[in-house]
């Protein structure tokens, strides 16, 4: 099921909230959430829901074994087997086609192996497998490291894994984040109010901004052969904004729904486009993924003395691969890795000495080009994009199409750029100075939320299927 559908907003969600409000006590509320979460997932994946249940069961049992045999070889073995199982499932369902295609391609270039032609498996990617696999892996490793208490009740572990707000497109919620709230949580009116507003904000980002920006992006990038220099950049900038509002919008909905149900998920985006360098960009973009790699992969001792740089390479390679089974994603990960590595070499102090304007120009160019790499799964088209963006295309610097599209979307672009800044936080800071301004801000927020929800709903009447981009991961 998709959040940005009228069916979710005006059918599934009200029923879920109603059932949740009726349920008395945490136990009953947990059962309501599990039932609705399984319906939510099975709505799109009636078969793969069993794969997720199997994954939950395997990791739950592994957790119990780890707990029973702390600091023994069985503990290590159970950890290893569970992690291998998790990654094997991810590998089979997400990467097997890509791996086989590349083996075949490689063999076709080697004379003695040119007869090799392995049938490419046609496996549909289970929705959200990248997210819930990382959650189970983080849980198992945390159990092994004894940084969390092993969950002994399957229903509670199932709730952690299947909680529908974050199930299919993140953020990657650590078990430690909601460990206590699974057992007992207090839900305040202010939490519900904040959560509902956050859901509306996320929906608005997706429907009013991201969906509209996608038209501009596709206009130029789908027809990259015909794009001018300005057109290529315009398309890539629009796509960068599209992905940001799409993914951060989903995270807003997840965090908001979580809050309504009494859970406090960590922030996944902190206005990434205001960053001053690429390292900072990744501290603000998809934070739950970056911190996962930082905590579980960066210092893996497989690179010996060079583990700092080896780990860095591994992290960025994995970041790329995680985003998709295609070479452009791998290239995209390594591309960012190179810039983070260069910034490490330059050093924080020397980076800070560079004028802020130069740093902003540098990182925005890197980010926009990065999203260009992210867009083009066809590497030939990606080559055309590079050529066009850097003035080696055949369509001049500025075309009529660029001017028309810009003017036709000028207010959308202005609003989108403004929304990249922490305006809400700024307003909150000012309004918190006195009770009067705080209450005025509350009223205004209610009004704006209501208007945004109505506008979003009207726009959804006309929306073709526009699933969130991060669904494919």
């Amino acid at each position: 099921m998709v959040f940005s559908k009228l069916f979710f907003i005006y059918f599934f969600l009200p029923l879920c909230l109603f059932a949740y409000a009726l349920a008395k006590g945490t136990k009953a509320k947990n059962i309501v959430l599990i039932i609705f979460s399984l319906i939510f997932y099975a709505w799109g994946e009636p078969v793969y829901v069993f794969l997720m249940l199997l994954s939950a069961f395997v990791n739950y049992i592994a957790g119990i074994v780890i707990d029973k045999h702390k600091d023994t070889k069985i503990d290590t073995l159970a950890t290893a087997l569970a992690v291998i199982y998790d990654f094997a499932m991810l590998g089979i369902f997400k990467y097997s086609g890509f791996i086989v295609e590349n083996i075949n391609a490689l063999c076709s270039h080697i004379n003695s192996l040119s007869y090799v032609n392995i049938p490419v498996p046609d496996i549909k990617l289970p929705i959200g497998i990248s997210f819930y696999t990382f959650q189970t892996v983080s849980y198992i490793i945390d159990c092994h490291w004894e940084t969390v208490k092993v969950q002994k009740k399957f229903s509670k572990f199932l709730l952690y894994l299947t909680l529908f707000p974050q199930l299919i497109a993140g953020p990657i919620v650590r078990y430690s984040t909601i460990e206590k709230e699974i057992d007992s949580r207090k839900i305040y009116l202010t939490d519900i109010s904040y959560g509902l507003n956050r859901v509306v904000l996320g929906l608005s980002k997706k429907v009013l901004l991201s969906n509209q920006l996608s038209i501009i992006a596709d206009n130029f990038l789908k027809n990259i052969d015909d794009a001018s220099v300005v057109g290529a950049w315009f398309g890539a900038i629009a796509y960068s904004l599209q992905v940001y509002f799409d993914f951060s919008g989903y995270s807003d909905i997840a965090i908001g729904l979580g809050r309504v149900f009494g859970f406090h998920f960590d922030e996944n985006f902190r206005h990434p486009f205001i960053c001053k360098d690429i390292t900072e960009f990744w501290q603000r973009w998809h934070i739950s993924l970056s911190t996962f790699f930082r905590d579980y992969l960066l210092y893996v001792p497989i690179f010996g003395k060079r583990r700092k740089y080896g780990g860095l390479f591994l992290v960025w390679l994995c970041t790329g691969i995680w985003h998709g089974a295609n070479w452009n994603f791998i290239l995209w990960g390594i591309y960012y890795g190179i810039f983070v590595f260069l910034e490490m070499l330059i050093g924080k102090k020397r980076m800070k000495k560079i004028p802020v304007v130069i740093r902003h120009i540098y990182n925005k160019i890197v980010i926009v080009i990065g999203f260009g790499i992210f867009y083009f799964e066809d590497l030939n088209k990606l080559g055309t994009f590079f050529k066009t963006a850097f003035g080696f295309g055949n369509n001049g610097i500025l075309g009529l199409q660029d001017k028309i599209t810009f003017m036709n979307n000028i207010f959308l672009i202005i609003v989108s750029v403004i929304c990249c800044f922490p305006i809400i936080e700024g307003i909150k800071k000012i309004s918190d100075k006195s009770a009067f301004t705080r209450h005025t801000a509350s009223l205004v927020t209610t009004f704006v939320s209501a208007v945004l929800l109505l506008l979003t709903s009207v726009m959804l009447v006309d929306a073709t299927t526009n699933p969130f981009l991060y669904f494919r991961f």
Partner: protein
Amino acid sequence: MSKSSKKHNSKKHNTFVDNSFALLNIMVIMLILIAGFCYLLFLKRDTVSHEENRNLSKFPEFTVESYLKGEYTEGIANYYDDTVPNRSFFKTMISKYLIPMKGVKYGADDDGGGVELYNTANDNKEKEQPEEPVTKNTQTTTNNNEEESTKTTTTTATTLPKANEAAANGEVSNNILVVNKRAIMLYGGAWGNEINYAEDINAYKEALGKDINVYSMVLPTSVSYYLPENYLDLVESEKDDIDSIEKHLKNVTNVDAYTALLRHKKEPIYSRTDHHWQPLGAYYAAEEFAKEAGVDFADISKYKKHVLSGYVGTMYGYTKSSTLLENPESFIYYEPETSVEVEQYSTSFTNPVETELFVNPDYLDNSSYYLIFGMDDNIRHVKTKCKNGRNLVIFKDSYGNALLPFLTSSFENIYLCDIRYFDLNAASFIRSVKATDVLFAMCTYSAVGINREHLSENLNK
């Protein structure tokens, strides 16, 4: 009262006020959610979208297979989203108020500067006369001083109307320009595919031999006639590609629909709100084809004219432009006076069913190119009263459907086949129906685009 208890009371008061505002916020959002829940669940759901000329999603039928594939549940969600009560009202609101908020039209604050067009719904003006070619006799007189005599020469020049319109302002969406209350698809060029098309048609001629006449009539779209000159940079020339096709045809007769239509560009030959032409455009193209084929052709006065007003075609769905929605046009089609027999077959020429040349408009809620001419996924056989021993097979895209009525006095039998939905070997089929003539009639987008691939596929099935 002690200082600490005062502070405590004030904190309690603030919490109470905060909770009150939070409650108000929750109530407002929940009220919208509950109202939406009731509205979508209990009000009568729409079944047809007139603006998009389509039936809305139906509640899916349950089968185990569809459930396991996720299609059943997805179908329910799609049904719920697609059949919103008063959908048309919301769509109008989006087109009229929300989409325009994204920006401004390029270079102006008005769409097309109020240029009047033919056949809008509230238009009762006289039809503009067709712009016929103008033949001018020009006398040039030169003085030759040396011979001291005056020499006069007369040259005759035939001038066609200009292909492009005067500059105007519009908006671009989905590679479609909306200008002068007309949606125009921006043609991106053939880039060599026009030669491939010509070679495909040549292959048909080669396979069919000299006894069967093969014609190619590539039909330009409205971009060739109605694009304002200030947008010329956005498109490639359809005319150049059509000319290139003509150059590469071997033993195939080229039918010049471009010039035939250009003569009549001031008449409603193309739909403003749909990506198709109007039947009148098809009439002029069919006339040109009949000339090339050397067959009789009935004048348009011999047809019964049907006018369906309030027509908003497919381009509204693609652009969501309120300009198109607010300026519907008339869909005018022509019915031959002499009766014909029509049979509709499957795409493998089986299961014949008797049918009509047109769908009866009395049964339709709304006019539409597809609704009048029927869908493309079939083969139609028309048996006429004409007795000239000529049988025609037309391989076409949806543009070709509109040609059919105008050829009913020119051929004994006409077989209308869509290149995209044809499950037989084309050459064998042509021979099996004893065709004397084969016409390839499709718009430029099909001739040089992805649909072209069906031509060679159909010959090799």
